[in-house]
């Protein structure tokens, strides 16, 4: 393969930075069946694990398989799912966003506070503020060239600080008016499935299209694959990064607002550690933390897997709820180690 005529060398070199991006216009290069299976397992392995867990659990625990339980689990998972969607996009560009948990909580409190002026205010106020936090993250990271980990760590503190300031150190709780359209947004349902679930699904659909079918999505992969190469290719790297952190802030704020609508109040203590849950879900879903590869569907399965584990441990009842994080941590190790070896074997074939 490597020792072909010189004419193919530049051709082989040119798409190298984009190797992880979906090369839609060109047919995929030939691969052995083994590597194709490896890729499939890496892409959709979590879905297989998820389905297996659900299947076994439905036989063992009849209460698990009920529609009511499914409704409960999906609503619980939908908020983390929306946050993790933004995180997926950020991680695909090779970045990370630690601020989402604080932004989620801030968005919730702002939404509950603004809900006194009606539906539109309750949605717009948190989106504007949280989007602005994401924008600042993006500008510091993309224009000032600072490490995403540190910038978003600072905004984690800053957003939590703003939240505390806004609620008089957590002493004030803002309530969403009962029977308002905004409360309905969080509590209502279609065929028994809560609005937050439907919104999360719609967002994931949009995210999938954005990532796989638009030039913006391709740019995300290119930036994550190699920021320098993307710059040389003339892609708007800085603008893309700023946009992606803004999106992450917007989604975290939206999830917070939906959560507030669901709970009918802005709760200050939510969202602590949520950034790491979101990162876990993304990683379990097969998105590589080094950037340049990943999918939103994997993240959705990752979130669901975490939610199902939590629900199962509640179902078992005799098990201490602390086992939930032990099992989640175990799954995380198994999945990332398996991914690592699959990726390694794929590269060598």
């Amino acid at each position, binding site marked *: 393969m490597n020792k072909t005529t010189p004419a193919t060398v530049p051709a082989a070199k040119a798409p190298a930075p984009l190797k992880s991006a979906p090369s839609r216009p060109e047919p995929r290069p030939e691969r052995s069946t083994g590597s194709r299976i490896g890729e499939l397992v890496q892409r959709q392995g979590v879905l297989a694990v998820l389905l297996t867990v659900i299947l076994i659990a439905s036989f063992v625990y009849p209460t698990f398989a009920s529609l009511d339980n499914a409704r409960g689990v999906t609503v619980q998972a939908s908020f983390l799912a929306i946050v993790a969607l933004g995180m997926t996009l950020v991680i695909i560009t090779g970045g990370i966003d630690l601020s989402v948990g604080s932004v989620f909580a801030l968005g919730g409190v702002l939404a509950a506070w603004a809900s006194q002026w009606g539906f539109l205010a309750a949605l717009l106020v948190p989106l504007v503020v949280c989007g602005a936090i994401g924008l600042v993250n993006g500008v510091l990271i993309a224009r000032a060239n600072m490490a995403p980990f540190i910038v978003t760590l600072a905004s*984690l503190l800053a957003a939590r600080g703003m939240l*505390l300031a806004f609620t008089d150190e957590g002493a004030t709780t803002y309530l969403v008016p009962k029977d308002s359209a905004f409360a309905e947004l969080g509590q209502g349902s279609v065929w028994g499935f809560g609005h937050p679930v439907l919104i999360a699904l719609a967002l994931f659909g949009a995210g999938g299209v954005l990532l796989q079918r638009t030039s913006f999505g391709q740019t995300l992969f290119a930036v994550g694959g190699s920021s320098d190469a993307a710059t040389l290719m003339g892609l708007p790297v800085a603008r893309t990064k700023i946009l992606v952190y803004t999106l992450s802030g917007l989604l975290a704020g939206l999830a917070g607002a939906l959560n507030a609508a669901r709970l009918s109040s802005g709760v200050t203590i939510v969202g602590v550690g949520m950034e790491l849950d979101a990162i876990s879900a993304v990683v379990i879903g097969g998105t590589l933390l080094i950037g340049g590869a990943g999918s939103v569907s994997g993240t959705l399965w990752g979130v669901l897997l975490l939610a199902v584990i939590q629900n199962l441990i509640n179902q078992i009842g005799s098990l201490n709820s602390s086992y939930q994080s032990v099992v989640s941590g175990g799954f995380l190790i198994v999945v990332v180690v398996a991914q690592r070896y699959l990726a390694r074997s794929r590269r060598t074939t």
Partner: protein
Amino acid sequence: MTTQATLPRPAKPAARLRDPAWYQEYGVYAAVAVVLLFNALFTEHFMTADNLRTQLVQVAPIVIVALGMALVIGTEGIDLSVGSTMALAAALLPLYLGYGLVPALLIALLAGAVVGAINGTLVSLVGLQPIVATLALFVGGRGLALVMADGRLKQIVNPDILALGTGSFLGIPTVVLIAGVLALAVAFLVQRTTFGRQIVAIGGNRSASALSGLPVKRVLIGVYILCGVMAALAGILATARLTASDPSSLGTLMELSAITAVVVGGTPLNGGSIRVLGTVAGALLMQLLRATLVKHDLPDSTAQIAQAAIIIAAVYVARERRSR
């Protein structure tokens, strides 16, 4: 040659203050001095021996964790599991106190070493990214601690352990003394030992280090074990001071405090250099800043926003220098 030798030491202080390199080198110490000066002038009862001793006791566990974190960051790694490791050590302590103080302490420290060894193995042998490798134990470690403690807070009544937390030697609290000795030991390790130079070399360029025959994998595992043991020690000391083992809340957000102390102290996140004294000063700066704001009746929210601003400023200064 001569101009270069004289350039870093300009005659005028004003010129020195315009040089970003000066801030990266001495900024954190200057900031600690400024905070102390401010308090000497404007805060009542701040510059008293009692208050300063309290501040030091409070910052000691963070310093101990941050020292281990500094070593890990020096290898271009990161350890998110330190808070969970603290909780795990704290949960094990009351379980084994029946066998005596020394076995209990050893088992708690050993738990830290095991956590570190798992992290180190995942990073070096499996080749995972440090964030992912340590995320698993961040998630699982606290759960394990809660499982072992039955999810309950346990009172500690062993007088020897309590002496570790609340005792003092020559007027200096034992906790502070331990943190100080550890800081000196880590500084010695980094500057004077082969292992320390290997850490910095690996952080600077891992593949070059591997090519020049350094035992990269062994050093990496060793560094994560050291970090885990230090986190466990911090967990033991914090438990001793609180006179209760509380695995559900002990060490929460500790990973972020430790990383903050390291970064504000001037250690770059991309490895290759470790500033031990800077790390201590970084932890101290964050602690003093918070205490100052509290003494002036400013709420916690202001402290958090101020901390965020300091982190951004510290990293911005570091960035200026790298681009030169």
